[in-house]
């Protein structure tokens, strides 16, 4: 019997298995063939299409949609994968409302863009489910490249290099490849273990070895890699989290949202996963929204996102905010945490209203208290474990051109490198472009 939403504290099994299963199905169900035909038909095949400009990986969107129209979804899939080998994951997780679909002329015309993301999923699913890999490797160059981190940036880089004939070894610290695709992305965006299936499919290109449990700074060093390989690509993401400064953050029930999310993604049985009755998520980005929605889907009674600035400043798009609201998450803005209270375990959080002058936040002195048996911190990830000797730009690895770091022979891309938004699709673009630059360097 399910515990119910009103059970106090942080407990597992608030909902029945059936409820949990239905809660964690696809956010955007796949298009059926006829739906895809109708959706594809809405595309105008724009000249120098604005949607392509808005896609960080420059997928030829009008072309792949026309290929769907013409009855060849697999050809459409190839068009997508040529630019973005993780086009399957991107179709599920891209915030299209701020990327391609925002730029679509039909958004301008009638506020209803061509459903580029779902069409991309239709085409990529079709090709991937056929099993075969669409690309072949070029003749071997005899060069070897080390990639550190098997997230989207590392995978995209490795795939492109392998395709061009280089041999690649990916060093990944975690037990599974995929990066945040595997440990971070919302479960309702990537269902049915898609992340691992995608990695398996991607690796079919050949020439890529994945060494899991291989941690840069522990079992391997940058110097060692530089010595043993012809080039190195760093794509280690943002492994650290920003610290929250407030009283009582060491109490039981307070934890990092990314860890909570990772637990959800890795859970064999969601009914075994504990969640609070009253959950407060601190932050305003995609991570905060994901953690809040997941808490709600697991059966928390009250879930609040507490963000220190106004709605417009939130990292999560308006669409994501509305998604949270539609799941019953309350969004409280212009509040900052002051203290988590409770005897050993958290029971309440005290927040102070803020006002912003010239970008400077100050507390107004007005307080608000919320019940909170679970507090999830989602105030941003930060670079951790970057090797010594690399120049930084702010708190990320400085790069110039297509991901060149300050050290010759070492490239970097994805979240760990400066520039670009922290998105899956941006990581893919940076990984791919760095691969092209590495290739040009190695064969010149």
């Amino acid at each position: 019997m399910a515990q119910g939403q009103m059970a106090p504290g942080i407990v597992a099994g608030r909902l029945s298995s059936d409820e949990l299963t239905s809660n964690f199905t696809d956010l955007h169900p796949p298009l059926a063939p006829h739906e895809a035909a109708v959706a594809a038909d809405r595309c105008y095949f724009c000249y120098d299409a604005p949607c392509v400009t808005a896609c960080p990986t420059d997928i030829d969107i009008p072309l792949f949609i026309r290929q769907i129209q013409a009855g060849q979804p697999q050809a459409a899939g190839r068009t997508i994968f040529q630019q973005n080998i993780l086009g399957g994951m991107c179709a599920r997780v891209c915030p299209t409302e701020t990327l391609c679909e925002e730029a679509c002329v039909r958004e301008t015309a009638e506020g209803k863009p061509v459903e580029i993301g779902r069409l991309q999923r239709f085409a990529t699913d079709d090709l991937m489910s056929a099993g075969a890999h669409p690309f072949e490797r070029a003749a071997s160059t005899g060069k070897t490249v080390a990639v550190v981190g098997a997230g989207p940036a590392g995978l995209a880089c490795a795939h492109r290099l392998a395709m061009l004939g280089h041999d690649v070894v990916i060093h990944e610290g975690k037990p599974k490849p995929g990066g945040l695709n595997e440990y971070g992305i919302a479960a309702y965006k990537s269902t049915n273990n898609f992340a691992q299936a995608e990695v398996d499919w991607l690796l079919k290109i050949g020439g890529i070895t994945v060494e899991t449990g291989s941690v840069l700074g522990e079992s391997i060093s940058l110097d060692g890699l530089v010595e043993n390989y012809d080039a190195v690509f760093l794509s280690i993401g943002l492994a650290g989290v920003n610290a929250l400064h407030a009283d009582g953050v060491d109490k039981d029930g307070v934890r990092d949202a990314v860890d909570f999310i990772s637990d959800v993604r890795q859970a064999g049985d969601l009914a075994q996963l504990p969640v609070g009755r009253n959950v407060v998520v601190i932050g305003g980005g995609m991570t905060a929204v994901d953690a809040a929605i997941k808490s709600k889907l697991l059966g928390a009674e009250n879930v609040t996102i507490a963000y220190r600035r106004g709605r417009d400043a939130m990292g999560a798009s308006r669409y994501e905010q509305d998604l949270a609201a539609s799941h019953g998450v309350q969004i409280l803005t212009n509040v900052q945490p002051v203290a988590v209270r409770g005897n050993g375990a958290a029971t309440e959080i005290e927040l102070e209203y803020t006002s912003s002058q010239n970008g400077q936040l100050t507390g107004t002195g007005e307080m608000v208290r919320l019940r909170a048996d679970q507090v999830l911190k989602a105030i941003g990830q930060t670079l951790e474990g970057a090797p010594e000797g690399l120049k930084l730009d702010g708190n990320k690895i400085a790069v110039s051109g297509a991901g060149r770091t300050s050290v010759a022979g070492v490239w970097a891309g994805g979240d760990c490198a400066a520039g670009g938004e922290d998105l899956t699709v941006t990581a893919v673009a940076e990984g791919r472009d760095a691969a092209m630059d590495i290739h040009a360097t190695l064969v010149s």
Partner: protein
Amino acid sequence: MADLTTNFLGISSPNPYWLASAPPTDKEYNVRRAFEAGWGGVVWKTLGSEGPPVVNVNGPRYGAIYGADRRLLGLNNIELITDRPLEVNLEEMARVKADYPDRALIASIMVPCEEEAWKAILPSVAETGADGIELNFGCPHGMSERGMGSAVGQVPEYIEMVTRWCKQYYDRPVIVKLTPNITDIRKPAAAARNGGADAVSLINTINSITSVNLDTFSPEPSIDGKGSHGGYCGPAVKPIALSMVSEIARAEATHGMPISGIGGVTTWRDAAEFISLGCGTVQVCTAAMTYGFKIIDELTAGLSEWMDEKGYTSIDEVIGRAVPNVTDWQYLNLNYIAKAKIDQDQCIKCGRCYAACEDTSHQAISMSDDRVFEVMDDECVACNLCVDVCPVEGCISMVPMAAGEIDPRTGKKVQPTYANWTTHPNNPMAKAAE
């Protein structure tokens, strides 16, 4: 409410919409339901001679062309004339006509091109009380191979001869249904008139193959791996039908001859267009086959609503209104000069006008870095391609230039007068202006 009552060759019907001779009119059951739904008349599915009826294929007899969301745009069929015995059809026609005296009931007939055959069938048709007959000289498949249908319709002399027999052995109106599978539609129409026909109806279906199956390499619809051309109809054929109707309406030999317009009538607007080009009734087949009889509600209400808006009180006031405006190319006013104009507020920046004009037309649209599309008047020939490809209706318009303005493309002043090709200096056959 405008009065839709129609009087065509003395045959009256409550509205100008008749169901064309085809599956919707193949039996009493259908026709009764059509009349209950409100159709003004029917042309009964084509009758053949007495004796064993024709047989149809037992596999697919239709193929289709689709637009977005599987909207049916064109239908193709390889069906023959009625495959039910003549007596059964005649009995049913008589019963239906007796029960619906206010509706038009026309018998469509196709028998061999021999006087005896027509002489034999016409009296029994007359006995049914049918209001008239339609001679099916149009069917382009199956029957034509047996020397009937379009095989007759393609030879004006045969049309004239058969029409004359019909006028001799039958005393009610004779309508000749024309095939579009011919180069000049005016020839068979004139032949029909010469033979004494009271009216022509057109078009019958157009020879077509809808598609080829790329696995089996059989044309569709495929019967056991083979296909034959069928007859094309539905929305896709309307422009062809309108043009043929207009040719007959304005040709000297056939001008003023009553016409029943057929081909792609799908909404009230199509009907209004046919009527304005000279048709006294319209016939509908594919639209009914696609959506069922109920579309008659929209067809009648729409026509009457439009007539009310325009102040027309009867169908007669609309018939032929567009005919005087159909002319030959050589008489079009070459002094009329327009330029495309893009309404920047409506433009959604898709760039289709640019691609079309730049790649395939007159390189008259400019594109800026921030995607502003503008027409260059000094290059624009007003071809209308941009208007046709722009996805936003009304965004690009063709604005006529006023007399006295300078056309930036030619540097010449726009003339207030009318001048056409026949007097143009570039025309080697130009008649010297007097």
